[in-house]
């Protein structure tokens, strides 16, 4: 049995600024269950080829299909229409540059984050391609893996009040990224160097603890734990020198 499902979708194209942003409604046949991503493709194929939205993997891996679904930042490919009754409202993620309609540029934002947090292993060791790989205990490996599960979708950034009003705030994804290197024994950065990167209102101390990041991360990263871990570390580093 299929039902009629109404969508209310944000429309705006920065290339035609004369046309003010507006909400457009579409009605589609909904089979038993479909993802928002499938629904959007159906709308684009059958009704409106001009509708802009992003996707690549459609399997919650690439992080490109994040949008605000009925008020919450969610992945379109991981959210089912049957989770909602009635009209489904779709808005683009705030904070990121709006490409058009539901499409935003998270790439530039995350590139900036990587550069700013210097998100690579800092070491003076010469790499020897012939040597056996250094061993790491399982616990540490799991900690790193946990942080690395971030798919850079931007849901935590879009949900964060601080990131919405302060452009320089690195948000949960940024602080989580630094946490990842802090637990990595191969990274030789000192506490001082980490402090330089994130020991300010742009990083750890800008967070006000509203937990929209923790509530909305589609990968269920333990963001509250990561944020508070980094905050305590920054306190310790900051007071120790």
């Amino acid at each position: 049995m299929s039902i009629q499902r109404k969508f209310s979708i944000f429309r705006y194209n920065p290339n035609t600024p004369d046309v003010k942003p507006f909400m457009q409604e579409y009605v589609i046949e909904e089979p038993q269950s479909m993802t928002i991503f499938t629904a959007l493709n159906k709308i684009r194929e059958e009704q409106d080829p001009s509708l802009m939205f992003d996707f690549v993997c459609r399997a919650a891996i690439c992080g490109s299909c994040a949008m605000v679904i009925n008020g919450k930042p969610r992945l379109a490919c991981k959210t089912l229409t049957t989770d909602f009754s009635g009209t489904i409202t779709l808005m683009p993620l705030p904070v990121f540059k709006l490409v058009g309609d539901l499409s935003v540029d998270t790439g530039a934002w995350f590139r900036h984050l990587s550069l700013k947090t210097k998100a690579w292993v800092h070491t003076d060791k010469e790499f020897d391609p012939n040597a056996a790989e250094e061993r790491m205990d399982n616990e540490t490996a799991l900690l790193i893996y946990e942080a690395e599960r971030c798919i850079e979708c931007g849901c935590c950034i879009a949900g964060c009040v601080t990131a919405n009003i302060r452009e320089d705030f690195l948000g949960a994804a940024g602080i989580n990224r630094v946490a990842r290197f802090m637990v990595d024994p191969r990274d030789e950065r000192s506490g001082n160097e980490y402090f330089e990167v994130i020991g300010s209102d742009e990083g750890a101390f800008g967070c006000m603890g509203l937990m929209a990041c923790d509530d909305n991360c589609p990968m269920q990263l333990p963001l509250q734990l990561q944020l508070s871990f980094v905050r305590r570390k920054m306190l310790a580093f900051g007071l120790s020198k």
Partner: protein
Amino acid sequence: MLAQKILTRNPKAELYYDLVELLTGVTLVGFLWTHMLFVATILLGKNTFNSLSQALDDYYLSYVGIPFIILVFMMHILTAGRRLPTRYQEQQIIWRHAKMLEGADTWVWVFQVITGAAIFALGSIHMWVVISGWPISAMTSAERMQAFWWFYLVLLILGEYHAGFGIYRQFVKWGWFPRKPLGYISKVITAIILTLGLAALWVFLKLGGA
């Protein structure tokens, strides 16, 4: 980098601000809860209340405690208050955002800011009135409550809200305890203190009539 920013750069500044925010927040909550327990001694009778007030006075605890709390209060306004969104557009963004997200913690924070600003005004008035009517005794307090019960009712509710959720969020930010039980415990303590406060207010109103 810009010259004025190079000249004034202090990499530790924001750490110290956050630390002072933490310490003043915890101190104020500790103070408020203790203060409410002291006030609630009226439930045990006029004499208990008066002798407690007298004891605090005799051992100079009031003369050390009150200026200290005023100082902490002001330092809290400077540190926690720096998060106050002062620009119109910021306020609009936050308001829209809270409505859109329907995230409980985001709404709680919006009211944290609003109650904070209200306590700034009401708390200052309260301190002024009490200090200028020194010393504290059951009868003078009862008179004040009679005349301004609505003022105390509002201050009590705003203060408890601000303190209860404030301490919750501090623990969340610093991660000393898991989030869910923490919210529960802070709500229970707030409910207890609020009940004591309301009961004390009621007793004072009765006293005033006598």
